[in-house]
C-alpha cells in the first residue's frame, strides 16, 4: 500500500502530526540558537569598519530573510486554499501571518538600532526600508481582513487574494538594493559569489537563520493546532483529544 500523503491534508490527521513535530523543531531551534549565538558573540571577530555593533547582523539578517520567506509560504498556502478549497491550507496561511509580521518587526527594529550608530539615523525612506515596512502592512492587512469577515470560508478567500497580490512586494524588497541607490547596503551573502564577510560571521549568521526558521515552524505549527481546535470544535474527533 502506497503512503498516502494527502491524508495529512485533513485537519483531523494533521492535528496529532503537528503535535508530534513541534518538540522536534523546538529542540532544533534551541540548538541552532545556542551554537549560533556562541559563534556570533565569542568566535566571530570584531568588524574592522563597524566595531561590535555589527553583531546585530546575527538577528537582523535571519529575521529579514524569514519575513520574506514566511510571506511566500503564507501566500502559497493561501493560494492553495483558494484554488483547491482545502481548509487546512487556509488555516496554515493564517497560522503563519503573525509570525511573519513579528519577523518583519524584528528586522525593522534591529535595523533601526543598527542604522543609528552607522548611518546616523533611526529611519530613512530608502527603498529597502520602505518596502520592508510595506511588508509589515501587508501582514497586518491580511490578518485584519481575515479577522473582519465573520464567515470563515469567505475570510479565507478574501485574505488569500490580498496575500497573493502582496507577493509582488517580496522581489521588490529583495532587489531594492540593486534597483535603487539605497542607503541600505547590498547583499553580503549571495548564491552566485563568495560572501563578503569572515567565515565565522557567515557561519553564525546561517546558524541563526536556521534557528529562526525552526522557531517559525514550531510556533506556526502550534498556532495552526490552535486554529484547528477553534474551527473544528464541533467535530466529534476533537471532543476527546482537545
Amino acid at each position: 500500500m502506497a503512503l498516502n500523503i494527502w491524508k495529512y491534508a485533513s485537519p483531523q490527521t494533521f492535528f496529532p502530526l503537528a503535535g508530534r513535530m513541534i518538540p522536534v523543531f523546538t529542540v532544533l531551534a534551541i540548538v541552532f540558537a545556542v551554537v549560533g549565538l556562541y559563534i556570533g558573540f565569542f568566535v566571530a571577530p570584531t568588524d574592522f569598519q563597524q566595531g561590535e555593533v555589527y553583531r546585530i547582523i546575527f538577528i537582523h539578517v535571519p529575521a529579514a530573510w524569514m519575513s520574506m520567506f514566511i510571506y511566500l509560504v503564507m501566500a502559497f498556502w493561501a493560494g492553495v486554499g483558494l484554488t483547491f478549497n482545502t481548509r487546512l491550507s487556509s488555516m496554515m496561511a493564517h497560522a503563519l501571518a503573525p509570525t511573519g509580521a513579528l519577523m518583519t518587526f524584528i528586522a525593522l527594529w534591529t535595523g533601526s538600532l543598527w542604522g543609528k550608530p552607522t548611518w546616523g539615523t533611526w529611519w530613512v525612506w530608502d527603498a529597502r526600508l520602505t518596502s520592508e515596512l510595506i511588508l509589515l502592512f501587508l501582514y497586518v492587512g491580511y490578518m485584519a481582513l481575515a479577522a473582519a469577515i465573520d464567515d470563515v470560508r469567505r475570510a479565507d478567500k478574501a485574505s488569500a487574494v490580498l496575500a497573493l497580490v502582496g507577493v509582488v512586494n517580496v522581489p521588490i524588497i529583495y532587489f531594492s538594493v540593486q534597483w535603487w541607490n539605497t542607503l541600505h547596503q547590498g547583499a553580503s551573502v549571495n548564491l552566485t559569489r563568495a560572501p563578503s564577510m569572515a567565515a565565522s560571521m557567515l557561519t553564525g549568521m546561517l546558524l541563526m537563520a536556521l534557528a529562526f526558521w525552526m522557531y517559525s515552524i514550531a510556533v506556526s505549527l502550534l498556532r495552526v493546532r490552535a486554529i484547528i481546535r477553534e474551527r473544528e470544535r464541533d467535530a466529534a474527533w476533537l471532543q476527546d483529544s482537545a
Partner: protein
Amino acid sequence: MHWGSVSEFFAMGGYGLYVWGSYGVTALVLFMEVVLVRRRARTPTGIAGHTGDYPTGTEK
C-alpha cells in the same frame, strides 16, 4: 575570545545600547509570541452552537 571581562562584553565596544536593545526586544517579542500562542492552543474552545467566528474562550 576577544572579551577581556564581563563588563567589556556588555559594553559591546560602546554599542551596548544598540546591540542589547536589538537582542533584548527580539527575545522579548519571541517569548511573548510563544506565551500567547500556547495560551491560545490551551484555551477551552467549548462547543459552540454556530460555526464561523473565532471563539471568545471561557466567558466570565
